[in-house]
């Protein structure tokens, strides 16, 4: 039905965007922009067209525009997702766009995910903790190929913030680390180069702002653009952390 509409002609699209400008004291309000759909149009293309032809002040963030960098997370019809890879043909002609909640609002669709993510990195110490410095000229320490792949599986997070925005728990209690934080811990826990023990990880996430705060609503899993196995990783961590905490 929708597909036909596209190939036969061009739909008229309405982008209903939640505008705001905290620095200038402009409170959030909806504004509609009308444009014609084009073949293969993504929200990246549509928003740039709005900016170029209708409102040069419209704020939004894109970087790679290929679904890799995680800059363009926003609420698309209420659901967190990456705008750059959302094809308009998959959406109804009225598209509502709003900035991700939780993160500090910069203006219009732009939010400060970077600050939040840096905070998470510092709080959870998301780097390999190792007591020795590697000898760079020596052969690298071997690692099982399957293990390397399993680590990469968890390393694919692009910090777009979709899981954060999708998490009801986090929205109620902003001190909760969220799926992204727990996934990072799972990633470093899996990595043999990180010398931290479960007790160390318990220090970081062993309370209700950490893994025990998760209420298993699983929107994180369902909105993650990278399809990370968040559900199973959080469950796994919960078992490990209970074992270490008992």
């Amino acid at each position, binding site marked *: 039905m929708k597909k036909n509409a596209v190939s036969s002609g061009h739909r008229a699209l309405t982008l209903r965007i939640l505008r705001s400008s905290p620095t200038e004291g402009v409170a959030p309000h909806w504004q509609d922009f009308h444009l014609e759909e084009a073949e293969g149009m993504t929200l990246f293309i549509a928003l740039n067209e709005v900016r170029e032809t209708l409102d040069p002040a419209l704020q939004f963030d894109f970087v790679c525009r290929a679904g890799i960098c995680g800059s363009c997370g926003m609420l698309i019809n*209420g659901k967190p997702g990456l705008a750059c890879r959302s094809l308009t043909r998959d959406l109804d002609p009225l598209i509502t766009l709003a900035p991700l909640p939780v993160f500090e609002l910069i203006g219009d669709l732009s939010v400060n995910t970077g600050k939040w993510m840096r905070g998470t990195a510092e709080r959870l*110490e998301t780097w390999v*903790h190792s*007591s020795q410095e590697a000898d760079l000229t020596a052969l690298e320490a071997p690692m099982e190929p399957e293990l390397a792949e399993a680590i990469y599986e968890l390393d694919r997070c692009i910090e777009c913030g979709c899981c954060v925005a999708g998490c009801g728990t986090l929205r*109620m209690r902003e001190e909760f680390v969220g799926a992204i934080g727990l996934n990072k811990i799972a990633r470093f826990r899996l990595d043999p180069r990180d010398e931290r023990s479960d007790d160390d990880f318990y*220090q970081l996430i*062993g309370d*209700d702002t950490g893994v025990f705060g998760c209420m298993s609503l699983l929107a994180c899993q369902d909105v993650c653009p990278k399809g990370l196995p968040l559900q199973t990783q959080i469950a796994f961590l919960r078992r490990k952390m209970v074992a270490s905490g*008992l």
Partner: protein
Amino acid sequence: MDSSFDSSGIARPLAPVRPLPEAAARSAQAVQVRTRKSRWPARLDLLQSASGLFLALFLVGHMFFVSSILISKEAFYAVARFFEGAYFLAEPRPWLVSGVVGVVLTVFVAHAWLAMRKFPANFRQYKVFAEHKAQLRHGDTGLWWIQLWTGFALFFLGTVHLYGMLTQPELIGPYESADRIWTGNMWPLYLLLLFAVEIHGSIGLYRLALKWGWLEGRDPAATRRRLRAAKTAFSVFFLGLGLASLLAYVQLGIAHADKAGERYVPQRASAVKLGELEFALSRRPGG
């Protein structure tokens, strides 16, 4: 409210904070000396699940026992007496039932207390969640909201029911129960309780499986779909069973309304079947 417990400092071994020597402090990323975190959050999380699981399992058993009324009055009568220990004690002792109810009530209160930590702590949290849910239109997020409200309802419904059973254990029987439900006007409460507890319990079990990663298998997404189906089946089955049982009590209650208060005495024929228990049964207290 939610984290008041861990901040209360119970059983928190306060490790002395020793300053690290300058050099070590700079390089030692891994070994930082911190106050050791309380173990209680882990325990409470486990207890929350364990109490929920216990209650859910109890509920399953409870529903089957209660539904024995659908077989016959005698069957329910026998089950009721069984729990009074009639089959292995010299005589039935209703305080045994009180004991069981007491345990359930304790777990119930404990569970409610633990789960309350997850309730929105203030109006802001409440509003944020409600808006979030409306905006996201996400299945499992919606389920939690249902769980929250059914849990809240259970505070009252469950407590009234359990208190009744605790204080009048001897008044469990085909006529006794039917009279309470119809003549005693308990049926509206039971109807609500039935819906609340079945829905709450089934969602709870579903959540338990996801939360702890039970039955994940090779394809967790498929498992999750199956679990969801199982959850719905669980709700439907037990709601059906519960409604049928409740209806049976109501019918019995209507039929027995003019003789309300009269206790049930099993017919000879069935008592014969029960063989040597006959004697014991005839000596039930107040009978």
